[in-house]
């Protein structure tokens, strides 16, 4: 990892997640009708943290599930590596609910597009709102996040690496130099 800058540290990440939880509750006038869906891999853990924070603030634990969008991707033919699929785990009903879709980085918007398709196959929610930890720009789809932790404008040759304790052993967000592989 060729680090250019550490943008957010552990304390900063904690504050960002707290703010996102507050914003979600405020926009939805409480948390009773929301369900949280984290996108594998890092979105899952961010969603879980937001869920815990919402419980702290609003004294209610919204249902929480994990979504794998591999099967809905549009880049099978152009990728060099075959994407590995993992299981989607959404055990609750999403009909008439306000779905908060949570991911670590918003970039081209293609993953969010795939997630929208996947969610629509699971039911008919009231609304789907997108929450991301980092928006790094360079959208290729007309997709905008409802909740953004950090806006970090990047060059196309840079990448954002979100590190989480659950899988990486640390909580931080880095700006790194990257090879030209679009996620």
């Amino acid at each position, binding site marked *: 990892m060729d680090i250019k800058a550490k943008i957010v540290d552990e304390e900063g990440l904690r504050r960002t997640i707290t703010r996102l939880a507050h914003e979600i509750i405020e926009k939805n006038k409480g948390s009773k009708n929301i369900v949280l869906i984290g996108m594998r891999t890092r979105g899952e853990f961010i969603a879980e943290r937001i869920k815990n924070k919402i419980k702290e603030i609003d004294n209610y634990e919204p249902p929480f599930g994990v979504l794998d969008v591999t*099967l809905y991707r549009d880049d099978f*033919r152009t990728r*060099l*590596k075959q*994407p*590995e699929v993992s299981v*989607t*785990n959404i055990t609750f009903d999403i009909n008439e609910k306000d779905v908060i879709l949570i991911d670590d980085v918003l970039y081209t918007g293609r993953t969010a597009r795939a997630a929208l398709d996947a969610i629509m*196959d*699971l039911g008919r929610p009231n609304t789907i709102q997108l929450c991301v930890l980092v928006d790094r720009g360079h959208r290729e789809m007309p997709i905008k996040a409802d909740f953004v932790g950090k806006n970090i404008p990047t060059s196309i040759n840079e990448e954002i690496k979100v590190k989480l304790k659950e899988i990486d052993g640390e909580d931080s967000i880095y700006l790194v130099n990257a090879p030209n592989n679009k996620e």
Partner: protein
Amino acid sequence: MSLSSRHLLGLYGVPKEDIQLILDTATTFREVLERPIKKVPTLQGKTIVNLFYENSTRTRISFELAQKRLSADTVNFSTSTSSAKKGESFKDTVRNIEAMKVDMIVVRHQSAGVPYFLTRISKANIINAGDGLHEHPTQALLDMYSIREKFGTLKGLNVCIVGDIAHSRVAMSNIFGLKTMGANVSVCGPSTMIPFGIEDLGVKVCKNIDEAIKNNDVLNVLRIQLERDAGSRIPSVREYHNFFGITSERLEKNNKNILILHPGPINRGVELSSEVADGPYQIILDQVTNGVAVRMAVLYLLGTMN
């Protein structure tokens, strides 16, 4: 991670990592089958031909459903409704289908080796859906998936394949696959139905069904294939049932924790008593459901390979 071959012709020589990947990927598709909309757009734009030269109900429907649930375009071919009846050679039929730009071919044929032959005359990914007495890899994969679902692992499990081993491509694929995954495999059946030299595959032979039940965690019970001349190898189906049929009395006497698999279709009262076929020991219908998931996994892994 991707499979090491672009075809699935059999399980002989298929590395453990490949089998593991297929079984793990099938878990994902098992979840898709539980959704309200059991369909994902993964293989959109891919065309798959089901080339069935031999009768089949569940394998063909299972493959077709798996393909449709991955959003592939499917074409079905069966000999009874095709120009094969007019005497067109297999090679010419395949060349014509190939010219229609297909991406994958699922083939079942009464002759062993046909799927391998297809890889030489076609650019498509080839999946063997049963070739003669040779192999039936997706059946073995779904058996392994179903066993793993119950026990959590295949390593160290004692699995006995019971019945007409000599006429069974399911048995062959199961032996290769289970051995690769570290299971202890044995076969049980009348001597006339146990192929000579099967021990060379690392398989134990058991002649007594009560012992087989006592010493194993899983029995994979095969159909007596009367259409393949199996009748000439046993005095009568009634006698077969008396000596090798699985009944609930036998299971309760010898091993109450055993798991019974059967690839179907069942000859009720021959391999299994009706009580066992519908009873708590068997997972025959789970196997059918898992079959769709496993075939989706195979199609996904081969169809998205670059």
